[in-house]
């Protein structure tokens, strides 16, 4: 289990390889990478991620432990950046490893749903015409609800 809340860039593939290499006995590894997206019809210049670092570290650590026990994960890692990112840059990455694919998938989705609603990051989009805070989505709350309390 590893949690890294950082303002530094990371290499998604190198992290995935290191994760797979250090996990013994896995038959399945799932990696989710979140990427800064700029829509053609509504472009952004940058994404600024604000973070309450101490709380983020504590929250993600707790969510990882919960995911590991629910889904029999052999290992799981979350990397989450904060600071200013440009379109195409990786924002965050979740990696899970399990004996079988169902658990690896479920664990990664569970972690993503919880990170969306329970990890103290706030996104601000910098656009050609100004800045705007990204609003929390009702669908993210609903996605989280499906896992129960």
């Amino acid at each position, binding site marked *: 289990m590893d949690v890294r809340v950082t303002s530094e860039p990371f290499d998604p593939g190198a992290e995935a390889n290191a994760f797979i290499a250090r996990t013994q006995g896995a038959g399945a590894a799932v990696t989710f990478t979140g990427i800064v997206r700029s829509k053609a019809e509504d472009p952004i210049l940058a994404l600024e991620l*604000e973070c309450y670092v101490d709380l983020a570290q504590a929250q993600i650590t707790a969510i990882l432990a919960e995911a590991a026990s629910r889904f029999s994960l052999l290992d799981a890692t979350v990397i*989450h950046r904060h600071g200013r990112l440009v379109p195409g840059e990786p924002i*965050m990455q979740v990696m899970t490893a399990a004996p079988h694919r169902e658990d690896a998938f479920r664990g990664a989705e569970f972690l993503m749903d919880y990170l969306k609603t329970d*990890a103290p990051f706030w996104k601000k989009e910098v656009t050609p015409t100004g800045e705007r*805070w990204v609003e*929390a989505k009702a669908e993210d709350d609903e996605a989280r609800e499906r896992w129960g309390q």
Partner: protein
Amino acid sequence: MKVLYFAWLRERLNKGEEEVSPPAQVATVGDLIGWLAAEDEAAELAFAKRHLIRAAVDGKLATHETPVAGAEVVAFFPPMTGG
């Protein structure tokens, strides 16, 4: 007691943290919001939509009913948008 502000709360209040000394009858997170809003016009506006105000007390996520007596750090922020 130290109070932290994040995201648009920080921007609207134009500060990321401050030291406050609420009176003894401020027992919960909700009481603290009410007291801060009553002390300052910017805070009254920033905290206007109470249902959008999330909090953490001493590094743990809290609700508006969570006690703040003896707390060292209370953080206020909008709904989180991580991931």
